[in-house]
């Protein structure tokens, strides 16, 4: 019987690169099955969304023109004249938000599952760095259509960056490419968004994925039952992968529906001399921090309120990122109520303040 095509290709490559080992290794991969297994999917969903961003982003690059003279008009052109331009752009905008949402869910599920504990500290670190980069992607990409809302949101956001003591002004000028938000800011953000961030992100992603492959899936700490024989598992190939693909299909459909029924707005072109419209707020993933700053009083003892807020968030973020190193209990394999409570508080805080920020 003649071999099917794919088998012949496989043999041809295998004769040259020895794929056997890899295939065996992959065939042995398994995914633990327990009541929290559902969360395992969110890493993959985040990855899928990132891939969508890269593909749609590259497509957008073919028509987008950077620079304050043409940016807005090129996006307008995309939405109006380019075939399916409206679709590509709306997918890109929606998937960006879903990407950050999926990333958050993934991060919190890892946190509550204490999957960051030894030996997976580096996986957590690269993941956190990728998450911060994702926020950077969101912030820089938001400005690129050079519309009114984006312009002012960037102004406010970089203003806040400028509040950091000592380095704040330099950071702000570095971000803005000058003292104010101008076309120079747009150029910079464009460079960050399509070159700098993707490069760094890909590096981190590579490390992250290799680590996951090498170390396998982590399981939540459960009293006793970590026995290799009683553990229920599912092979990664083909079971988990196919289920993963199924979920990805559903996500794809969701994005398509959002893109058609809730197309991303463009609004008015940014006018550097206009006054800010009322109610400027950043995208939802920054909202909880923005709202917190609004609630802080102007002065707390001798420290300026805004500076205090930023410092608190900075320290909080740092602590969060270093959790594998100060969570002693989990690294010993013990359950930690404290970590759980901390996590619940964090989630609640973020949700409540985001809602408050949205409805204010």
């Amino acid at each position, binding site marked *: 019987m003649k071999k099917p095509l794919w088998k012949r290709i496989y043999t041809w490559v295998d004769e040259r690169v020895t794929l056997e080992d890899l295939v065996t290794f992959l065939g042995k991969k398994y995914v633990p099955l327990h009541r929290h297994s559902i969360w395992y999917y969110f890493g993959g969903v985040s990855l899928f969304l990132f891939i969508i961003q890269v593909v749609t982003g590259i*497509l957008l690059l073919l028509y987008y023109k950077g620079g304050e003279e043409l940016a807005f008009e090129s996006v*307008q052109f995309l939405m109006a004249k*380019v*075939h*399916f331009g409206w679709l*590509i752009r709306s997918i890109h905008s929606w998937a960006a938000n879903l990407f950050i949402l999926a990333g958050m869910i993934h991060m919190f599920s890892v946190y509550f599952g204490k999957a960051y504990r030894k030996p997976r500290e580096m996986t957590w670190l690269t993941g956190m760095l990728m998450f911060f980069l994702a926020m950077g992607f969101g912030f820089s990409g938001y400005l690129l259509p050079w519309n009114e809302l984006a312009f002012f949101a960037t102004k406010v956001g970089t203003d806040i960056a400028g509040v950091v003591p000592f380095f704040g002004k330099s950071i702000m000028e570095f971000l803005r490419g000058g003292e104010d938000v101008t076309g120079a800011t747009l150029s910079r953000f464009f460079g960050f968004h399509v070159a700098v961030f993707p490069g760094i992100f890909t590096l981190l992603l590579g490390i992250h994925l290799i680590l996951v492959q090498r170390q396998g899936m982590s399981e939540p700490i459960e009293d006793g039952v970590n026995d290799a024989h009683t553990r229920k598992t599912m092979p990664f190939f083909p079971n988990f992968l196919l289920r993963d693909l199924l979920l990805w299909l559903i996500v794809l459909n969701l994005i398509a529906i959002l893109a058609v029924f809730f197309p991303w707005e463009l609004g008015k072109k940014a006018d550097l001399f206009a006054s800010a419209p009322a109610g400027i707020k950043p995208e939802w993933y920054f909202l909880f921090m923005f709202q917190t700053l609004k609630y802080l009083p102007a002065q707390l003892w001798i420290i300026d309120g805004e500076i205090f807020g930023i410092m608190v968030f900075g320290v909080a973020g740092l602590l969060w990122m270093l959790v594998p190193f100060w969570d002693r209990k989990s690294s010993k394999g013990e359950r930690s109520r404290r970590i759980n409570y901390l996590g619940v508080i964090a989630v609640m805080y973020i949700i409540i303040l985001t809602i408050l920020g949205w409805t204010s």
Partner: protein
Amino acid sequence: MNESMTAQTQEGKRGFLKFVLSGSLLALAGSIFYPIFAYLKPPKSGEVEVSSVKAGKVNEIEKDSGKIVKFGTKPVILLRTAGDELRAFSATCTHLDCTVQYKKEMGLIWCACHNGKYDMNGRNVSGPPPRPLDEYRVVVQGDEIIISKKA
């Protein structure tokens, strides 16, 4: 007998499922790649306009004449003077927004609605218009006239 039949129907079902899966996968691929390929094909109106606009070739506009050109969403009047100078102004009359025109016999820009007149520098010289017309920058690249916003 029964077993072979169930085995056969199972085979049949399996084959059908495979067929449906591969068929729909193909359709999915098509519904993803069709928009992408359509997207890659450049649309008819080519360029993004509006910071600057091509207004035709120099030999397409006669000496001592004017024509209306679309600049984004606004009309612009392009003039070629008798002295062979190219000038461009906003064509929206500053009185009540009618579109102005060049009147050769008057040597002026004229608004038909209420007899408003502007000189060849866009300044309002007679009639109701309260302000001059905004000026645009005209540049000739090769033999192509490009109109852009004044800095």
